[in-house]
């Protein structure tokens, strides 16, 4: 994207579809933060807003996919232009999933706010959500800046989110061992934590797309992963 195309409409098309992705990223980040806030404050109204807001994210994803299909059909993009279109499609799909996780978080908030709170757990979830949103934001910034170095950094930092998840897993396990009446709430919180951890994986996926966009190849090395806790199983 250093130089412009002779056919300036091509540039406008590419810029527009990327602007849509950035807007989608903004909506997903806000949804995650709001959902975590709603959980911590037992704010059912805010949780409901997050649930309803997912429709806008889904609509934007559909629009981006349609735009990309048009771009491929009408402009026959090649080389870095082709990689731009391909990465836009994958990033939009990743953001759509992240939006779904925010919606799921908000759904569980409605259930959890009817139960006895687990001390400290929702605060930990909120901190984890914030960390993941920073990761997501950095991945998208790296995308716009075409910055493979920052993208590599995002990949490395997903490790921190994995560790936060593992710590929260232990914390929830302790609550359950202490009092079986905590199990329902702890299970819900665990799903929430797992989903946020997956958003981190999507941020990593976006960072990998940035590396593909800039270098033309996906990073081949295995990404560092935090040790999985007590046979809790790997990701996914």
């Amino acid at each position, binding site marked *: 994207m250093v130089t412009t*195309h*002779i*056919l*300036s*409409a*091509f540039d*406008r*098309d590419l*810029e*527009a*579809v990327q*602007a*849509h992705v950035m*807007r989608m990223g903004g909506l997903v980040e806000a949804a995650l933060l709001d959902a975590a806030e709603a959980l911590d404050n037992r704010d059912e109204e805010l949780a409901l807003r997050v649930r309803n807001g997912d429709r806008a994210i889904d609509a934007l994803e559909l629009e981006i996919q349609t*735009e990309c*299909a*048009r771009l491929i*059909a*009408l*402009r*026959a993009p090649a080389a870095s232009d082709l990689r731009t279109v391909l990465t836009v499609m994958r990033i939009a799909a990743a953001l759509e999933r992240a939006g779904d996780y925010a919606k799921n978080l908000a759904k569980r908030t409605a259930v959890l706010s009817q139960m006895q709170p687990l001390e400290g757990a929702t605060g930990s979830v909120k901190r984890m959500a914030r960390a993941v949103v920073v990761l997501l934001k950095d991945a998208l910034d790296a995308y716009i800046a075409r910055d493979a170095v920052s993208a590599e950094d995002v990949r490395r930092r997903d490790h921190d989110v994995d560790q936060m998840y593992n710590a929260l897993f232990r914390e929830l396990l302790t609550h359950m061992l202490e009092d079986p009446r905590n199990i329902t709430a702890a299970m819900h919180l665990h799903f929430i934590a797992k989903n946020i951890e997956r958003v981190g994986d999507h941020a990593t996926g976006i960072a990998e797309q940035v590396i593909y966009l800039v270098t033309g190849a996906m990073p081949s090395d295995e990404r560092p992963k935090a040790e999985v806790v007590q046979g809790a199983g790997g990701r996914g």
Partner: protein
Amino acid sequence: MNDMRLTERAVTEKAKMSARKVQVYYGSNHALKDVDVDILDKTVTAFIGPSGCGKSTFLRCLNRMNDTVASARVEGKIEMDGHDIYDTRVDPVQLRAKVGMVFQKPNPFPKSIYDNVAYGPKIHGLTRSKAELDEVVETSLRKAALWNEVKDRLNAPGTGLSGGQQQRLCIARAVATGPEVLLMDEPCSALDPIATAQVEELIDELRSQFSVVIVTHSMQQAARVSQRTAFFHLGYLVEYGETGTIFTNPSDPRTESYITGRIG
């Protein structure tokens, strides 16, 4: 910023030219059958289709170029702004000033660059003074994105320019008479890819001022430059619609076969 693409796609729904039940015969050969189409104002419309499908024939109906072919007979109705262009009171020469044409091969007159552009305004008496004519020449060359390349040698022969420049000179010549519709018959088929891209960019800019109708063998070119696409096959207008729809989800199986390279 988010609505950039939407602006891009937005076209007026106002028809500049409309054709109804147009038939063209070359002697006993029925070359064009029942063509109904509305050419929208300030829109690029592309005609695509295999050789002999009738797309150039139809293009030539829009400024009565078929009048010059002795064996050709045109039936049906073609209107511009609601006026029948085949009315006996219409002077085809005047019509062609309003509906300009650019051909496949650049065909500048064997005259200077200046005279090539000045020719139309002169014969149609569009300017009253030399100063006015100078201005028309400059604006036309600017509109054709050629001014900067030729401003220091306006008296040099037009035939001395490169192929791409010659084609833009022909576009400037067509623009000089203040057309409302510009017809282009394969305007890039004799040009290299860069000159082609320059002409395509020019077409996109000209769209803000008038309608452009382009016949092209390159489906990619139709996809790149047009907002509306018409597919012709065996003398019929098979499908006409928004270019994005034609190239992502055409409704007629013949269109699908053609754009995917299954029939020619």
